[in-house]
């Protein structure tokens, strides 16, 4: 049995060669006429405020989405293991997974009620 992950490495290699080749080609044949204004950020010619790198700030809501996502993503990954072995685990697996779902759903409803999904 050959290792089924080796072809993915080969495809990744081909994709990376293509991507780097494109960048290299454009670096070789593209024009290079630099001036200072061209290298400024897209912001009407002034420095962007707040400066993004290092001090870049964005609404705290996105952190909330990210944390909720992690909780749900882990839940989903566990559900996949159960789904593949559904017929072997049968009733035991079903009851256990439903209890797990309840444990995840209660905080979800709590966040919903507390306005965690409101964007207005």
């Amino acid at each position, binding site marked *: 049995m*050959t290792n*089924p992950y080796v*072809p*993915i490495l*080969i*495809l*990744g290699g*081909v*994709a*990376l060669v*293509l*991507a*780097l080749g*494109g*960048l290299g*080609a*454009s670096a070789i*044949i*593209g*024009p*290079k*006429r*630099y001036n200072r204004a*061209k*290298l*400024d*950020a*897209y*912001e009407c010619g002034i420095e*962007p405020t*707040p*400066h*993004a*790198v290092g001090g*870049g700030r*964005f609404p705290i*809501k*996105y952190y909330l*989405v990210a944390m909720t*996502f992690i909780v*749900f*993503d882990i839940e*989903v*990954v566990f*559900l*996949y293991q159960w*789904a*593949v072995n*559904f*017929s072997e685990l*049968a*009733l035991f697996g*079903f009851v256990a*997974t*439903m209890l797990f*779902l309840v444990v995840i759903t209660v905080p979800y409803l709590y966040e*919903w009620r507390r306005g965690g*999904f*409101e*964007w207005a």
Partner: protein
Amino acid sequence: MNTVTLGSLLASPHPVADFSNDNGWIWLLKAVGIVVFLLVSVLFALWFERRLVARMQLRPGPNWHGPAGAWQSFADAGKLLLKEDMTVKAADKVVYHVAPLISVTCALLIYAVIPFGPEVSIFGVVTPLQLTDFSGGVLYILGVTALGVYGIVLGGWSSGSTYPLLGAVRSTAQIISYELSMSLALIAVVIMSGSMSTSAIVEAQAQFWWAVTLFPAFVLYVISMVGETNRLPFDLPEAEGELVSGFMTEYSSMKFAWFFLAEYINMLNVSAVATTLFLGGWRAPWPLSAINDGMFNTGWWPVLWFVVKVWMFMFLFVWIRGSLLRFRYDQFMKFGWKVLIPIGLVFVVGVATIQVLRLELEGVDLRTPLMIGAGVVVVLAVLSLFLPERKEPEPELSEPEPFDAFAGGYPVPPLPGQVLPPSPRAARRAAAQEAAAEPGTVAVLEAEEAPQDEAGQTPETKESDDV
């Protein structure tokens, strides 16, 4: 266990396709083939989308270069290659250069586990038309899709500019939100197929496509895949009026081209996943599959069905773009978190309940109670249409206060609750109607209007002049 009643449940969790004949050269050939297929598909998709959207908007679209404008996409690709590659001053140099590479490489990797067809003979080697397959195929697809988000968030962050940063966080929040409903939709497929390997899932759909038996999951997946690829009506990261071009704003030349290419390849990816997991993959549609003892399910024919099914989804993408308007961001997040995810969870629980009942109550006929249950749900849904809607209490209208549009020296529109005074002409007309209601004053009114008509203009032409 009884294999007769539980046929679909007992599929092996391991891949059905047999890769034992493959060697390094076959792998390389398939890998290059996948990349070429995707690049050609993207060039075609650019032309296809422009032409189709143009037709939907009653204009011709690109029709100048080549037959029906087909070379327009080549011209665009060449133009991007010939443009100057700039790095903005504020950029974080290393991350800025790496981000487009992450995006495009991850997008190209998804097709590794997508089956194009059954076994064929390539240069004398019998091999499946699929690069590779393993028992975690669906997880691989979800994982690599999630890795692609790094390209977006790093590209937006490293540009050192405000619009890309906002576009990147928006895009990331959007993709991870819709990825959840997408994975929830796929769990039902995995339960029914009993495997995460894509070739085994295609095999499990020999009888019924999951799009038919798991229709709600299919709808959920189709909605989430549009959100996942940042397409209209969910193209908020690139809402031109608000964020210029989102995370791509500071990119030019081939780096921009790679982000753009990754976006279109991602459309092809989600279409291929939808085809494989819900529409029977490379299997011929029903009337064709019965012809000549399944002739159309062997050899190279399946590639045709696969490509046709994928392009059905591409057509759907363009159709949606031509028909719908962009969502507002709060509506969009609300839709994802408060509608799609609960529906996905409830559907997974429902499918699992029915399947576990089938397992535990072997020999008991579940069809009758299920049909009765479905009938009750439909009747309740229909009855709910006849329930009287709860009336919102009418807001009490207070007497509108007089509003002078020119109070500040220049005209301003009225705020809610304020009413503009009637225009001079409307005031005249109201006065005339009031006068007409009292028969005693008719003569006076006519005498007033007569001098206006002397100028040779009827009242109608005067009105159109005013406009």
